[in-house]
């Protein structure tokens, strides 16, 4: 969608609503790419940033093989909304393709923070900040995890 100077002004709750839809549609296994602008930018750890809807589609297609299921615990997210930014902070649980389950707050994986820029009804930018090692498999690298508290 081309950017114009008369973009639809969105209310904060409308921006939040787009972010909530993203989580709910994803968890339901439903199509959610329509929430993104054609020129959207998406970042996920260890993946090259996706520029434009084709690369965004590819990024999520690259991620799915990691997961059997994922649930975003949306009722307990913190939403920080200011201007065109919606930050959503919270926890997930689910199962990886290899059968490892994770649950935020129980294991180490499963805490995340998403930064959305939402304008004109669409997600223009999404940065997903998290440790992508959901299953706590890469622990030997961290000296403190060799100790008792792990």
């Amino acid at each position, binding site marked *: 969608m081309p950017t114009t100077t008369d973009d639809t002004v969105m209310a904060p709750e409308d921006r939040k609503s787009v972010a909530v839809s993203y989580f709910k549609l994803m968890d339901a296994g439903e199509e959610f790419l329509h929430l993104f602008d054609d020129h959207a930018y998406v970042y996920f750890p260890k993946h090259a940033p996706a520029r434009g809807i084709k690369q965004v589609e590819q990024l999520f297609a690259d991620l799915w093989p990691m997961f059997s299921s994922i649930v975003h615990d949306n009722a307990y997210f913190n939403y*920080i909304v200011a201007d065109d930014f919606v930050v959503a*902070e919270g926890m997930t649980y689910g199962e990886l393709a290899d059968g490892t389950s994770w649950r935020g707050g129980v294991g*180490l994986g499963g805490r995340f923070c998403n*930064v959305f820029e939402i304008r004109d009804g669409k997600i223009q930018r999404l940065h997903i*900040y998290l440790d992508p090692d959901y299953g706590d498999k890469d622990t030997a*690298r961290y*000296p*403190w995890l060799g100790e008792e508290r792990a």
Partner: protein
Amino acid sequence: VSLTLTPMADEQRKAIALEYLKRLDRGEDFFELFDDNAQLYFPKWGLANGIEEIKAAFAAIADIISAVTHDYAYFNYTHAGDTVVVEGTSAGRTADGTQWRAGVSHAGRWCDVFEIRDGRIQRLFIYLDPDYADADIARYPWLAAAAS
């Protein structure tokens, strides 16, 4: 905890968040910026409750990172109520000498969520991929495909 908090402006919260990051980069003490009962989250550490556990967490993190520079000039700040979200990039060197730089390596993009009240950081959750050296690659199907 006093029930009568000193009101703070957004720019005061921003100043505290930025001060924390600048002291971190300079290797200076920053624990006075935290409330005694603050809560910290760092990936692969989990939660640290109270200043003593927070000190232990940062000491452990310092053992895996030799040097870090946060790119202050290009941060995004999002303020709402007592929460400040700071999103940015970093560059640095791990203890084993591996360099990282956002945009060059995978590592180096981070997002900090601060709750700042009464002049102190009450909560700091640090969201990032802690694999600064890009050493854990084989686990990710798209990277394995690119490498083969």
